[in-house]
């Protein structure tokens, strides 16, 4: 899989595509538009801010996860018209509201794998 993000001084810039055929954005980046099948969509950098669309708190570690619990997980809506699944840096359901502005930040997580001990991924932080 291609790189998912670019780390811009702690801001997570998600790397996506924009289709010259159907005009839709997609994430992650790929060689073919996943909505219409047209090849060679344009590589784009997605917005680093959006709004919270849905959220949940995960209380026990799912299989293969070595990071802290509880943690937030949900969906962020980006202005391009894309809903992206994302960690959320708030693990309190009552503290969040739908439509709340968020920004995407880089987060490092332990993987539990001694050969590749750190995962660099993204999460949403309320602005």
């Amino acid at each position, binding site marked *: *899989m291609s790189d998912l993000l670019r780390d811009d001084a702690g801001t997570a810039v998600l790397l*996506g595509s924009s289709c010259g055929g159907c005009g*839709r954005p*997609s*994430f*992650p980046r790929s060689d073919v538009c*996943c*909505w219409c099948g047209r090849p060679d969509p344009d590589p784009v950098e997605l917005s680093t801010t959006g709004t919270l669309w*849905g*959220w*949940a*708190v*995960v*209380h*026990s*570690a*799912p*299989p*293969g*996860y*070595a*990071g802290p619990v509880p*943690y937030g*997980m*949900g*969906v962020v*809506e980006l202005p391009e*018209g*894309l*809903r*992206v*699944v994302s*960690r959320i840096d708030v693990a309190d*359901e009552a503290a969040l509201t*739908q439509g709340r502005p968020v920004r995407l930040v880089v987060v490092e*997580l332990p*993987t*539990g*794998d001694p050969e590749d001990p750190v*995962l660099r*991924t993204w999460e949403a932080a309320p602005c």
Partner: protein
Amino acid sequence: MLIAGVGLHPFGRFAGRTATDLGVVAVRAALAEAGITRRDQFQATFCGTAYGGVASGHKVLGALGLTGGPIVDVEAGCASGAAALALGVAAIDSGQADTVLVFGIEKMPKGMIRSSFFEPWREQAGLSATPAYFALRAQRLMRERGVTEDDLAAVVVKNRRNGVGNPDAMFRAEVTAEDVLGSRPVCGPLRLFMLCSPNEGAAAVVLRKGTGGVQLRTAVLRSHLPGNVLGEATPLAGLVDDGDIPSPTTLAADAAYEAAGIGPSDLDLVECQDTDAARELLAYEELRLCPPGDNAALLRDGTVGPGGPLPVNPSGGLLSKGEPLGASALGQVVELVRQLRGDAGARQVPGARIGLAHTVGRGANASVTIVSG
């Protein structure tokens, strides 16, 4: 197409019994009902399983001394058994076979399901937490369809009450709404009692070309269309304008109604995928049992309850039975056949003539099966 025999191994936890052991029980029962004692009396076998591993179906038929014909294992997530059924139907429809054995087996690990569907980085990022996806879907149903936490609890109360009458279910004790709403929060708004348990079990069906008896009208399998971020396909991203994209369940239901030449109003009972309480409420509209927005009304007015005009999950559903992935869909078909034969005991739906079974899960895959008798 005749359903010539059905068999079931109860769903639950069976330490010391292998998936093969469970399969042998279900297959022997189905073959006995169909009067099959020799390998030349059926021409193909399809075995649904998601976690069974290499040659799962062969091991069951091997234990019974019935190998020799083609045996194919089929994986389609929660719809694995239904996918096996669809292939069995196709083998008969094509003229390749007169009689086909279809069965499903599973022995699931306890707890949150680990799925090879998720790449390692998604597990490491915490984005493979299945209950969180269920919760996000439940939240959307509450926002956009007026479903309440009390409605979610009511689904559990209904199905667990139904499960009391099912000797093959894992949970056979009634629960109250207070029990459900007092159980441990898993991912808001879902609580422990609102989620089904992955478990173990087996189910088998013998299909035979012919009329009479309980008829398999159609077995349809469909996958998702791109676009929805909260569907069982669980992509990393979806489109904002996803409201008009038909779900795989709706695709399967529409095709099944057309193939069977019936509509939702002709149904006498439904067995649907109640992986979590909200999933059942969503299935009501996806299966066109009600217009979107009337989901909770169907439950509140007793339509889908015991004694109602369209009982849903009279078996107790997955919330009572648990979910052995490969066996789950065929377990529903076994239940429908028993209902249509009038053999369902305490949970009998009086006068049931047409039943629908529905599964949906990872892939995404969705199945709709219609039987009549």
